[in-house]
C-alpha cells in the first residue's frame, strides 16, 4: 500500500508541475495546489504503521488494535492548513494582477524583461 502511495506522489507531483507551467494563471495556481496535495501522499506513505484503528487510546492507555501513525497525521494536518493559506494568497495575487495587467496570460506579464 505504501508503494502505491509513493507512486501516486510522483504521478501527482508530475501533474502538478505540468499545470504549474501553464500560461493560464488560474490553471497554474491549481497546479500549485496539486503539488501541495501530492506531498500529503508522501507523508502517508512513510507512516510507521499499517494502522487498523484510529490513534485513540482508551482510559487504560491501551489500544485495541494497531493504530495508524499519529505523527504523520499531525504533520499532514499542519500541511493542509498551510497549503490553504498559500493557495488563498496566490489566488489573491492572481486576481489583483489580472485586474492590473488586464490579462490572465502569464506571458503577457513580463515586466521583468531586461
Amino acid at each position, binding site marked *: *500500500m*505504501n508503494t502505491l502511495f*509513493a*507512486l501516486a*506522489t*510522483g*504521478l*501527482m*507531483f*508530475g*501533474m502538478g*508541475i*505540468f*499545470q*504549474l507551467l*501553464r*500560461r*493560464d494563471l*488560474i490553471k497554474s495556481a*491549481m497546479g500549485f495546489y*496539486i503539488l501541495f496535495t*501530492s506531498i*500529503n*501522499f508522501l507523508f*502517508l*506513505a*512513510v507512516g*510507521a504503521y499499517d*494502522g487498523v484503528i484510529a*490513534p485513540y*487510546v482508551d*482510559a487504560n*492507555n491501551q489500544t485495541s488494535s494497531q493504530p*495508524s501513525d*499519529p505523527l504523520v*497525521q*499531525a504533520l499532514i*494536518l499542519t500541511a*493542509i*492548513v498551510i497549503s*490553504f*493559506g498559500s493557495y*488563498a*494568497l496566490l*489566488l*489573491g*495575487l*492572481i*486576481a489583483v494582477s*489580472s485586474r*492590473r495587467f*488586464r490579462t*490572465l*496570460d*502569464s*506571458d503577457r506579464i*513580463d*515586466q521583468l*524583461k*531586461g
Partner: protein
Amino acid sequence: MVLVLVILLPFLLAVLVSFARMRASTVGTISALAMLTLFIISLLQLSSVTVLGASSLNIPWIPEIGLTLSIYVDGLALLFVLLITGIGVAVMFYAGQYFEDGRTAARFLALLLAFTGSMLALVLAGNVLTLFIAWEATSIISFLLIGFYGGDSAARRGASQALVITGGGGLALLVGLLLMGSAGGSLQIADLLANGDVLRAHPWYTAMVILILIGCFSKSAQFPLHFWLPGAMSAPTPASAFLHSATMVKAGIYLLARLSPALGDTLLWTTVLPVFGIITLLMGAVLALRQRDLKAILAYSTISQLGAFVALIGLPNGEGLKAAFVGILAHGLYKCALFLIAGAIDHATGTRDILLLGGLRRSMPGFALVTLFAGLSMAGVPPLFGFVAKELLIEAAEIDPLALIIVVLSAAFTVTVALRLFWDVFVRPGAPHDGVELHLHKLPRLMVIGPALLAVTSVVTGIGVGPLITPLIEPALGKPTSLYLFPPGGINLAFVLSMTALAVGIAVFLTRGWWLAWRLPTLTSGTQIYAGIIRAVEGLGDLLLTSQGGKIRYYLTAILTAVVLLLTIAIVRILPFEIQAIELKNASDVLKAVLLGLALVSTGASILFERHLLAALSLGVAGYAIGGIFLLEPAPDVALVQFLVETLATVLIILILARTSPEERQQAISKLWGQTRWGLMRDLTIATALGCAMTIFALAAVNSRPTPNSIAGWHLENALPQVGVNDVVAAIVTDFRGTDTLIEITVFGIASLGVLTLLARPKPGKVTRFRLRLRHPVRSMQIEPSGETEPDLPMIYRSRFADPVTQLAALLVLPFSFVIALAHIAYAGVAPGDGFTAGAIIGLGITLWFVVFGYQETKARLRWLHPTSLIGAGISVALINAALPLVFGREFLAFTQVADIYVADIKIASTLLFEVGICLTVFGGVSTIMEAISHPQEAEPL
C-alpha cells in the same frame, strides 16, 4: 576607563543633537564645548601615559573569533585623540556659525559628532577588528557628509566615488589585518606589536603588508588612489576641514604608524612607503599650483603633505616618526584653518574661484590676518609651528639626495601655494569678471573665531614648541626627544635648505603670471579611469540583463530543470534500492486504492478540462477522494480537516473566478489551451522528469521509513499520561509539537491578512479609514458607477443567490456551525475534530453568508464580526496559553492543567485553551479571506 566615555560621548551627543530644535550657533557652541571637555580629559590622561606607558582595557565580545572590545592607549593614540578633539573644538564652533538653518546645522553636527566618535574609536582601538569597524564607520559617515547636499549630482558622484575607493581599500585592509592576526596569533594590537619578529619573518608578510598598504593608501589619498579627495570637496566646508584635511585622511597614517613597530623595518616597508610617499608629495604639490578652486588647491596640498608623512613613516629604524608626528600636528592646524577660511569666503562671496577673488582684505580683515598666519605656517616660516615641521622633514630627508631635492622642491611649491592663497585672495585687487562684482554676504561675526583659534595655536606652539609639544611627542615616540624652534647648534643644512625653498617658492610665485597661462596636455585622471570602470561594470550588468525574458514560465523552466539535474545526481547515488511489493491485504486497502485512482483521475481531468469552473470542481472531487483515503487510513482528524479545507478551497477558487473578468478568462481558455507542440513537449518532459524523480525519492523514503519502534510509538504511549487526552493526534498538535501549530496559525493569519490587503484596498483618493468603513458599511459604502468598474461586479455585492431558500439555509447554518464548532473544541481530546475543524466550520458558515447575502448585507447584519481582530485574538490566546506555564514555573508550552476542573466531563486544560486560540485564528483567517474576496472595492488598474 575614562577613555571609554571619551569615545561614547560624541555618539550620545550626536543622537541628542539630531533632535535639537535650537539655533545653529547654539548647537555649534554646545558641540564645541563637548569637544573641549574631551580635549581636557585626554590631556589629563597624558601624564599617566607618559609615566605608566601603554595601557589597555578589554571587554570580551565574541571570544570564538577573537573579537574583543578593547582600548589601547599609548602616546600615539593620545596624540591623535588630542588632535581630533582639539581641532574639533574649532570646527564645531565654526559649523554653528556656517549654517544658517538650525535643522541643517543639527543634522550636520550630528553626523560630525558621530564621525568624531568613530575616529576616536579608531585611534583608541586595541583590537584589529574594532579598528576595522571604526575605519568603515568613518568611511560611511564621510560618504554621508560628502553627499550632504543630496540634491547636487556632483556631490553624489563625489560621495559614491569616495565610498567605493575607501570602502574597497577597507576590504583589502580587512583581509590584510586578518592575515596579520592569523600570523601573529592574536587579534589584539598589543599582542601583535610584541610579535613583530614573528610577523616580519612570516611567509604571508608580503601579502599582509601589501593589503594593509592598499587600505591605508586609499584612506590617506596616496598615489594612485588619491583622486577621490578632490572629488570629496563637495562636502560642506566644515566637513572638508575636519575630515578631509585633519582627521579621516590621517587614519591611514595613524595605522601605518601604529603598525610600524610590528611590520616596519623590512625591505618592502622601507621601499614602498617612501617611494609612494615621495611621488605623492611631488605630485600633490605640483597639481596644487594650477587649481582654480580654493578647496581643490587645499585638497591637493593635503595629498602632498600626506605623502610626506607616509614617506617619513617608511624610513628605517623609525627615524622619520618624529618628523611625521610633528608634521601631522602642524598640518592639521594650518590646513584646517585654511579650509575654514575657504568656506567663509565661499559663504561671503559665493565663489571659490581664485581667479575671480581678490581684494578681500578690506571686507574680511580678520580672515585676512588669520590667513596670513596660517599661510606662514604652511610655508614654513619661523617662528610658526609649520616651520618646525618643515625643518624636521628636511632633516629626515637628508639621507637620500634625490629625496632631499624632491622634498625641497615640494616645499617650494607649497610656499607658492600659500602665497597665492593669501595674496591673490586678499591683497591683489579683485578682477571683476564680465563686469560682475563680487556680491558680499555679511558673515556672522563669530565665524572667524574657529580659524583664528587654530592660527593662534600655530603661532603659540611654534614659539613654545619645546615645552608645549615635546610632552606630546615623547610618549608617542616612546623615547625622550627634544624639539626646538632654532637648532641649538646654530644654522644647519636643514635651515639653509628650508630658506632656499622659501626663496624658490617666492620666485615661483612672482612669476605665476607666466606659468599659469601655460596650456598643458590633459592626462587621463584617476577620476576618469574610475568612471570608466564604473561604466564598464554597468555595461556588463546590462548585458546580463538581456538574458532576462521576463516570462514567469521561462524562469520556472530554468528552476525546475536545475532541480531535475540535482535530483538526478542525488538519485544516482542511492540506486539501486528495494521496492516493496504492492499488496492489497483487505477490503480497506482495495477501497483506498480505488479512491486513490479516483483522486488521480480527477486531477488529470482538472488538467484536461478547458473551462476553469470544471477544472476547479474536478480538483474538489480529487480532494474529497483524498479525504476518503484519510478516513480509511484511519485518520479521522485529518479527514475532517481535509474535507473542510477542500470545500473552502473550491469555494475560494470559484469566488476568485467570479472576481476575474470573464473576457479575460475566455481569452485564456480559448487562446492558451492550444499550445504549440514544442512547448507542450517541453513542459511534458520537465513534468515527467520531475515526477519520476519524485517517485524514486518517495520509494526510497518508503524503503527507509522508521521501524515500529519509532517516535510514533512514544507518542502513543505518552499522550494520555502527559497530556491527558485520548486523541493522540490532538496531543501531538497541541502539546508535543505545539510550537509548530503556533507558528502555523500565525502563518495562516498573515496569509489571510495578505489576501485582505491585496483585494480590499480602498480606492485611492478616498480618505476614509478602512476600519471605520467596516463598522458602518451600509451608510458609507458609496459604489460610484464609474467607467472602470466591470459590469459583472454587481454580482458580488448584489448577490444573485439571495432568494428565500438560500437565505434561510444561510440563516440556519451559521448558528449550527457555532454549536458544532463548540462541540469540536470541547471534545477535541477524545473525539475527532479539533480547533482547526471548529474554525473551518464557522468559516464555512460565514462564507455561505457572504455568497448568499453579499458583502454589504453581511457586514450590516453581522455587526459583531471583526475578522482581523479575531485573528489577533486567536494568536494572543494561543500565546498566552503557551506562556501560562511560565507563571507556574514550568517551560513554555508545557502542559498545564489549570485546575482539576471538569465541566460537563470536559477537562479545562492548556489543550483546551490552545484549541480555542486555533479556532479563533482559523475562523478569523477564513472570514478575512472570504470578506476580502467579496469586497466590492479593489485595486485600481494601472
